[in-house]
């Protein structure tokens, strides 16, 4: 059962110039993005900076208003879906508690002037949870994320980056949300701490049957946490597939390039990968046809003129490539 359905989500940022602030161009930050997340599933949204993954996440949280498209969300298990895209701030407020965010920066996301207990309880407080219940839930949450009970009367500055991220996770879980959007939740952490937080997220998800949208750029981390992966390039989805499949048999040349570019922690796998050529296209002025065509070693004339649509290339594996069926792309191989 789907908790979230994104349907042709589009977000443009107009660029104004001149004295009269006339719109001269549009940054197409997200274009025709469609995907869904089922109950208890983790979908990873990956791509390089500027690809639009953060824009999509912020639209789902309705920190941004999408230009067009639908964001259908199921607040209950009764199958009813609400489209969040057109809702006003006021109409959104009762729904907000169901979708929570885990931030990237464990330092900026906690108010330095509030005690940890108050930070974690705030969502409950503003949603009218009675005091006694709040206290009880606070202790549960601290225990859940592996923090000592004394933490609640301390200020954030007393905690390390990893512990702060645990505080942020506890706050996100305070209201039992149905969907958690995690925006690069471990990219600011040290490797050894990152592993702790990844494990925590995995455990919490199993325990709480959470649905999660995991926005990330680190493909190693993504492989550990996600059930399915959606790859974005210059505002569009280029491939969506179950994790294992995406890594072993990618169907889009960009996915292949991305997988090849990750430095593998194994000196034996050196120099096997050729770095992709060129640079990411400008989302205000993408090339005609497939946005990846100038960098793609397999590009043909059709790729330079016709925009490929995201389609099923077999068994729920979606790819937006004209040549997805004929190409035999290489994923990551080896063993650990």
């Amino acid at each position, binding site marked *: 059962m789907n908790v979230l359905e994104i349907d042709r989500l589009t977000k443009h940022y107009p660029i104004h110039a001149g004295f009269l602030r006339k719109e001269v161009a549009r940054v197409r930050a997200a274009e025709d993005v469609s995907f869904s997340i089922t109950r208890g599933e983790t979908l990873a949204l990956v791509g390089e900076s500027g690809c639009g993954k953060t824009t999509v996440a912020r639209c789902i949280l309705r920190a941004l208003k999408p230009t067009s498209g639908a964001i259908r969300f199921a607040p209950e298990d009764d199958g009813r879906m609400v489209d969040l895209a057109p809702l006003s701030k006021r109409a959104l407020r009762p729904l*907000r508690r169901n979708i929570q965010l885990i931030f990237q920066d464990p330092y900026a996301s906690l108010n330095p002037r509030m005690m940890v207990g108050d930070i974690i309880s705030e969502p409950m407080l503003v949603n009218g949870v009675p005091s006694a219940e709040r206290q009880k839930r606070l202790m549960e949450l601290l225990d859940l994320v592996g923090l000592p009970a004394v933490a609640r009367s301390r200020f954030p500055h007393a905690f390390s980056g990893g512990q702060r991220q645990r505080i942020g996770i506890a706050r996100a879980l305070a209201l039992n949300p149905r969907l958690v959007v995690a925006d690069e939740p471990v990219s600011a952490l040290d490797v050894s701490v990152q592993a702790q937080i990844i494990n925590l997220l995995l455990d919490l998800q199993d325990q709480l049957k959470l649905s999660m949208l995991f926005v990330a750029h680190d493909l190693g981390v993504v492989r550990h946490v996600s059930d399915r992966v959606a790859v974005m390039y210059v505002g569009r989805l280029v491939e969506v597939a179950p994790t294992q499949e995406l890594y072993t048999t990618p169907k889009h040349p960009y996915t292949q390039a991305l997988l090849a570019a990750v430095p593998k922690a194994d000196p034996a796998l050196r120099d096997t990968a050729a770095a992709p050529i060129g640079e990411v296209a400008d989302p205000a002025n993408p090339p005609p046809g497939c946005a990846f065509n100038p960098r793609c070693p397999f590009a043909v004339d059709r790729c330079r003129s016709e925009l490929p649509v995201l389609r099923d290339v077999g068994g729920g594996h979606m790819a937006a490539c004209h040549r997805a069926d004929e190409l035999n792309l290489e994923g990551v191989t080896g063993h650990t």
Partner: protein
Amino acid sequence: MSGSLADERLAEAGQLRLTWWRFKRHKLAVISLFIVILFYTIAIFADFLATADPHATDARRSYMPPQGIHLFDENGFNPHVYGLKGQRDMKTFKMVYVPDPSRKLQVEFFVKGYEYDLFGFIPTTRHLFGVVGGTPVDGVFLLGTDQLGRDLYSRLVVATRISLSIGLASVTISLILGVLLGGLSGLYGGIIDTIIQRVIEVIRSIPTIPLWMGVAAALPNTWTVIQVYFAITLIISLIGWTELARVVRGRFLALREEDFVIAAELAGAGQMRIMLRHMLPSFTSHIIAAVSLALPAMIISETSLSFLGLGLRPPAISWGILLQDAQNVQVLAGAPWLLLAAVPVVLVILAFNFLGDGLRDAADPYG
């Protein structure tokens, strides 16, 4: 999080206490804080600290030099001054004062002097110290006297009141205007922001000296000292709020984008709660710092205005008015002590600046 007591204390310390701890490391700022407190104490107890009526004139003691207090005599501790004997130098026709050891004037604490109202409503004649049974000529003139024979020390002490309070009053008005308009600007943005920002730019582009001169000419001569005082305060703050408004707006815009503010929004917190619980506490320290940096500018404004004769006018006593007396080079050659009126100005301005720097660093160690 090791369990030591110091760590525990640090962990549970709020931002206010952390700010204080950081502030304490800033030695110069701590000293400055004491100086500022000292000066405001002086301002509050000005008449009590004065030794002579600051308005009392007497031609017989014109341009008396500063008079040293002798703390000891042959009987041990016995503070006293010697009376001054005026003689006219027959070559220059200037009055020259020499101490007259035959007239020993006892200096005592809590002596009776001129009448005044302590805190403005307790009538009393007690002063911290002074000469017992002083006459117009026989008194203690710590910093000498001016042309009209007014005691400079007493005048300086009393001037502190107006000079410092005018700064405080102007800053208060500026603060209200600045926070209100800066807040509106930062909160709503768009057209409101544009209008307020343009107004600020226009105000900041007005050349101040010609403006003061115009205003000074416009203030009716018939106004009392109090009325002029309020008019000056208002004018200074009408210019001064722009800087504070910019600080507030800047912090507002920065805070709106902060992750923890977004987190509160996503948690479902209302605008009011976000403002009061998350945004305001994050910039009160900035405001305090901005205020302590704006104060000296206000004080300087008053001093310069009065010095130029555009601000307060005698019989009001302010540092600027005292410095007005020191404008003339010839006067200065004969009575250089009149320049002492500049010392408290420099001291207070420096102290406020260091204090402001210290507060700003302590409030926001990262920026």
